[in-house]
């Protein structure tokens, strides 16, 4: 296939962005429609690519290479495998629904959509890059518009949150950059020629000390973005401050950049380093899961609840990565997808409520199901996905993570802990999650009708687009998980082969 479909997916928002630049600021509707069309093109192309991807063949597909700086071995080379293809689809879905979720935006609409499209271009770029240089470049492209989007269009303490987020992420990416440069230099010395190609870099034999060092850098660098405890605090504040569509992209996709980077650049290049640090990740992720969920239980602001729930859910992804086996890594990638969709749904709905009610304080709500039955239904489905109800995408993902880490027979801390115990602790998270999610549902949507909120209108028209698309995605992959897992497994298999080839090495504990 000669059509550069991946580049097209990435450039569709850029084209939309250029068009928007030409549209006068007053033509808000035209701007929104342009953005919607641009992201719709991305979505359609992403679906086409998803369908055309050959699971049986696996590996990287839809390759495209353009030489860029030959002397440093930098190429614009793109391609997707079974792990990145779902992420591309996720990004396309979230941005498409995100545009509709920002339909009611009135403040500096033109700039908002320009930055939004710029942001998503960066995200697409990260997921399709096969070249470490471009990987990092796009990574940074994704971070910068985020600052402006939160700082200008945000709410609650927006400057603080925007600054906090940007500083955390930049400090993180500085670590990752050091790691990338070190890898580049090491590999250039070993290979005798400079290259940034991830596949080539992965074939290099790195010595153990180097792997430990660089994987740690990657762990900090990408871990901030995941976010791994205790580097997570940018995320609740950032989620709360960000405007709806940005929260959706942020929690839905940006966090996955971290986990994806950790797998793609961390685990894939440095399997021994990963084995060494895995126990640390495993212990920290339990803190993520349990501690995050318990904090979510006592939040008073709807968005904070979801912000902390993301911290908790991304803990599952980390557990999947830490367990380093086929099942768990499959689960981790699936959970990235599922959580992205679910949390985007949450933020879209909360944004909807907030836009109309001008508050997100749970205690002031109650009985909203009377005024907003569709929003309530959507929120309930999101909540059920979040607590891992069978039939929805998250269940499959969490199940795979749990069973993967549960069957990993390795003890830590001289037998004091084992992956099995950690898994049990992580599974206990589903109980806490059920408690806080359903409590929020009850306190917000159930109960007697409050006349105070009678002026709220239920979601309708374009507002239904995000709800319908996201719910349908959750149900589709929940009922037919093989559509997703077969693809992910084709991407995870080589990774696991590499991990297993790595010589046995004791973990940090």
């Amino acid at each position, binding site marked *: 296939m000669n059509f550069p479909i991946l580049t097209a997916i990435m450039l569709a928002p850029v084209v939309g962005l250029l068009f928007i630049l030409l549209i006068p600021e007053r033509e808000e509707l035209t701007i929104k429609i342009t953005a919607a069309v641009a992201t719709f093109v991305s979505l359609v192309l992403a679906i086409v690519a998803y369908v055309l991807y050959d699971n049986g063949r696996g590996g990287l597909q839809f390759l495209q290479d353009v030489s860029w700086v030959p002397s440093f071995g930098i190429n614009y080379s793109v391609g997707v495998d079974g792990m990145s293809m779902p992420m591309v689809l996720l990004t396309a879905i979230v941005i498409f629904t995100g545009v509709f979720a920002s339909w009611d935006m009135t403040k500096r609409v033109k700039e908002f959509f320009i930055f939004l499209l710029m942001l998503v271009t960066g995200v697409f770029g990260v997921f399709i890059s096969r070249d470490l240089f471009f990987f990092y470049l796009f990574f940074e492209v994704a971070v910068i518009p985020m600052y402006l989007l939160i700082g200008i269009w945000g709410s609650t303490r927006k400057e603080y949150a925007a600054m906090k987020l940007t500083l955390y992420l930049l400090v993180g990416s500085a670590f990752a950059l050091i790691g990338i440069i070190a890898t580049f230099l090491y590999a250039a010395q070993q290979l005798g020629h400079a290259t940034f190609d991830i596949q080539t870099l992965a074939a290099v034999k790195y010595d153990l000390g180097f792997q430990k060092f660089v994987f740690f850098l990657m762990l900090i660098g990408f871990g901030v973005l995941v976010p791994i405890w205790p580097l997570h605090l940018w995320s609740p504040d950032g989620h709360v401050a960000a405007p709806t569509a940005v929260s959706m992209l942020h929690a839905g996709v940006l966090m996955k950049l971290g986990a994806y980077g950790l797998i793609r650049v961390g685990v894939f290049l440095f399997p021994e380093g990963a084995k060494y640090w895995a126990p640390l990740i495993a212990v920290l992720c339990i803190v993520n899961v349990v501690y995050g969920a318990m904090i979510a239980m006592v939040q008073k602001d709807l968005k904070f609840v979801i912000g902390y729930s993301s911290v908790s859910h991304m803990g599952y992804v980390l557990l999947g990565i830490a367990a380093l086996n086929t099942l768990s890594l*499959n689960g981790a990638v699936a959970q990235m997808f599922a959580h992205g969709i679910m949390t985007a749904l949450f933020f879209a709905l909360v944004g909807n409520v907030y836009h109309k009610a001008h508050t997100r304080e749970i205690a002031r709500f109650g009985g909203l*199901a009377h005024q907003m039955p569709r929003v309530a239904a959507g929120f309930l489905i999101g909540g059920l996905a979040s607590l891992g109800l069978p039939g929805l995408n998250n269940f499959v993902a969490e199940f795979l993570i749990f069973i993967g880490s549960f069957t990993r027979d390795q003890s830590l801390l001289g037998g004091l802990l084992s992956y099995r115990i950690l898994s049990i602790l992580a599974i206990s998270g589903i109980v806490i999650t059920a408690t806080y999610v359903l409590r929020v549902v009850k306190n917000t949507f159930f109960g007697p009708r409050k006349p105070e909120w009678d002026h709220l209108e239920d979601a309708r028209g374009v507002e239904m687009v995000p709800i319908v698309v996201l719910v349908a995605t959750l149900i589709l992959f929940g009922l037919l998980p093989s559509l997703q897992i077969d693809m992910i497994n084709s991407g995870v298999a080589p990774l696991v082969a590499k991990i297993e080839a790595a010589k046995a090495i004791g973990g940090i504990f």
Partner: protein
Amino acid sequence: MTSYAWLIPVLPAIAFPIIVFITRKVRFLSALVAIAAIAASFVMAVGVLQEVFLLGITMEHPVEYAVPWLQIPGLLKIEAGILIDPLTAVMLLVVTLVALLVEIYSVGYMHGDPGFSSFFSYLSLFSASMLGLVLANNYFMIFFFWELVGLCSYLLIGFYYHKPEAARAGLKAFVTNRVADFGFMLGFFFLFAMFGTFNFRELAEAIPGYQNTAFLALAAALVFIGPIGKSAQFPLHVWLPDAMEGPTPVSALIHAATMVAAGVYLLARAFVLFASLPDVMLLVAYVGGFTALFSATIAVAQRDIKRILAYSTMSQLGYMVMAMGVGSMTAGMFHLMTHAFFKALLFLGAGSVIHALEEQDIFRMGGLYKDMKVTTTTFVIAALALAGLPPLAGFWSKDEILAATFDHGFTGLYILGTLVAFLTAFYMFRLIFVAFFGKRRAGLHGHESPLTMTVPLLILAVLSVVSGFVGTPFTEHGFSTFVYYGEPHHVEPNYAVMLISVLVALAGIGLAWLFYGRPSDVPERIANRYRSLYNLLVNKYYIDEIYLWLFRRVVLGLSEAFNWHDRHVVDGIFDGVGDMTRISGRKLRLLQTGNLQTYALVIFTAVVIIALWMAAPVFGGVVQ
């Protein structure tokens, strides 16, 4: 027919989206779609049962159909599959029949409710999930549907979501069940870790040869936590009484006849796991026995008609679990079947009363028999069946449990079971004498319910009478040679046990008549005399209060502490780093005077020093 059995859950499952998306506005069609779907399922279930007989499908030779659902080559194989054996066939029949009758009944009961259509959509979803659970051929699928029935239970308990109590009860039910599911999930994870499969048949082949019984016992005990939650056994029983906030047909279908029995069904399905572990079996038996007594004592002191029935359900489920624990799967399943019929009837009868009076406190009712002949008659039949009077259904099944307990040497449990039988007869007839007979109270006038409601009552009443005959000790090829574990066995009639249980039941009824059948102040005097015991019973042994305290103080307290820690300690450290940068910047910037000439001087001095340093070798070399 068996190869089409997968359609049985699929039909109601299709009805669900049809009602939600298409017929929601047209109430009549919604009910029609739901009832048509479940009726078709019922017909197919009958077909399956017939074929099980005709083809000689037995417990040892089940039929299995499966398609892969999720596969990771070499590591994980999860099938969407169905397993058909007599156990499945019986459950299918019970579930479809009760669901069908309840749905017909609901047409009358929910008439005029604004949520009429969504009620039927939830019922369809529930039926689909419950039937899926019954048909599942592996632990994964059973867990899948196990959670879905829990969801439907949540939705239906909270059906009147404008009522804060209903919303709270739904939440409580779901979270309590989640705790149980957590255990269940761990249990079959352990099994998977040991055997690498979820499939019942493969496990049944592998388990008997497994050596590490400690590990196996742990897995079995964890799996048993699932039934403890779903079948409302002590200590996870607290959700079931509150679940009565849901509409009464829901209480009949979900919280009496089918879903709560899923725990018992799971025990039967997983019997091979438990059978080899006497310690775990003992645990099961005592949990069941204790719950039976525990909840029967609470039922004695309740005033709400539905709550009395709820505690009675818990008590009867305790019986079934106890039967499983003493090793008689047959008795447990037999009681499950008969109980489904007469308990559904009791709830539907109670619903009929509530429908007429809009009142649930039995002490505000009275003399209902005059206005509600059909309801009263059927209710009394069901109560007699529950109390265990021959020849009604409950007598045969309860008698089989007691006989099994006695025969297997659990004398303590047998005495306990007999005591429960006495209490059961007492609280049921307390209810009947107070609510249906005696004088009219509080100006409440009943009226008989419409046909859609009375016809299901009559059908269930017939079943409450006859369904026991399939398994009497006098029947040659009865229930015990159909649904069993191990060898098909025919139980010889144990006349002593029969006689004693009839006598205690009569004693219970008699005592109820003495206390409540005529004007009397004895109950009040007793209540006053043993005030603290009475309060203990009325307040359900304060278990709810203890849990609430644990949740509020411990869990929420810990969460608050974590929140504080996160906001102040962790964030404090990171914000502190930021603040330190800012503060040091503020101090350091004082070095910048802003005076150009000062800068120029510094620059010049630096240039001179560098020049001297570089020129050092020329001048004789300080630095080499």
